[in-house]
């Protein structure tokens, strides 16, 4: 399992180290980030790639996120996979409301993130119009590696107690930095309002 990174102190030296002190909050975050039970909300073709992600080849259990719970009341992470239509929106909102805190939301693919190329009367242009979203994974559909980027970014955010929306960066982007190709969006305090 992953290590407790922050504010952890090991008492003792070498192999004899036997006591680890940490904060209860960090321990809780550490537990949460490795037990992201998923609630799959799959509406469209991204579901095919979702099947690939959850297959043994990619071994989602490495992240502790492999267990699907088809009851939203038992799940932690809502995977929104595919296009959200206006007709589907009340269902998504209801499922999100049924999930118990703490809960996180992942927008899997371009359609769930922003509506994709569906710019019409029937489509919700991004699930963030309805429910708050933590992780956006671009791609049409995203490769499983992108999904793992998103999952790891979400784990980092959980460990930091950070609830701001984040997006993974495409792997071919030249601006890829030393931080494993993950980019964090920062919200400006004073944003110009465009209407």
């Amino acid at each position: 399992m992953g290590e407790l990174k922050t504010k952890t102190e090991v008492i003792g030296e070498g192999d004899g180290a036997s006591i680890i002190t940490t904060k209860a909050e960090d321990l809780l975050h550490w537990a949460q980030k490795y037990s992201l039970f998923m609630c799959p909300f799959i509406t469209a073709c991204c579901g095919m790639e979702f099947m690939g992600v959850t297959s043994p080849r990619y071994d989602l259990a490495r992240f502790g996120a492999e267990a699907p719970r088809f009851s939203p009341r038992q799940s932690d992470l809502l995977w929104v996979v595919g296009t959200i239509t206006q007709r589907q929106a009340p269902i998504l909102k209801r499922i999100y409301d049924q999930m118990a805190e703490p809960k996180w939301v992942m927008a899997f693919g371009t359609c769930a993130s922003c509506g994709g190329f569906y710019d019409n009367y029937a489509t919700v242009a991004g699930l963030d119009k309805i429910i708050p979203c933590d992780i956006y994974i671009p791609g049409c559909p995203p490769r499983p590696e992108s999904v793992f980027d998103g999952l790891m970014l979400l784990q980092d955010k959980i460990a930091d107690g950070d609830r701001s929306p984040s997006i993974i960066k495409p792997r071919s982007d030249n601006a890829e930095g030393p931080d494993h190709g993950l980019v964090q969006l920062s919200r400006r305090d004073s944003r110009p309002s465009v209407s």
Partner: protein
Amino acid sequence: MSKALVELIRNKFPDAFVETHSQVGDDTVVVKSEAWHDVCAFLKSSPDSDIDMLIDLTAVDFPEREPRFEVVAHMYSLDLGHRLRLKTRVGDAKGENTDVATLSDLWGSANWMEREAWDMFGIVFDGHPDLRRILMYPEFKGHPLRRDYPADKIQPLVEYRKVDNIDKLPPFDANEGMSFGRQTHDKTEEESADAELFGDN
């Protein structure tokens, strides 16, 4: 291939026959909307035509024309192997008086396809057993595939969240990005880092 079918309709319904044309082997007959059901019933019952399968039924909106809508039915005879495209024209410039007789008593497949034509174009099929919306939700106002339905008009069922700029819809400007990056992505730091790495172009 189905020229005989065209002549059959022309001889049987000389008053209702409007025009015909043929393209890449598919024959089209346009009939008056009053005779829509009679022509179809005849095509189904006559042993010379024996149309037993309604493949598709839809509508087309030509806002510059009068009558405005074309109702199109594609039909096929499984035994005789010929097919026919039958059209009729209904509706005025305001998109009203779009009544045409239902075909759902002749072919069961017409039921849902007429519901779709009603949902998308507002064609009223008289005598349809259950003329409800089939794709859009009951709260939806208007008919979205009509040419005068605004292209950017949405009718949300769920109220959008109270977040700045959440009502903004695509297409976005170049500096707005997708909805998640819109107005929130602080690029200055990143761009300066890029300039150091790759040189200033």
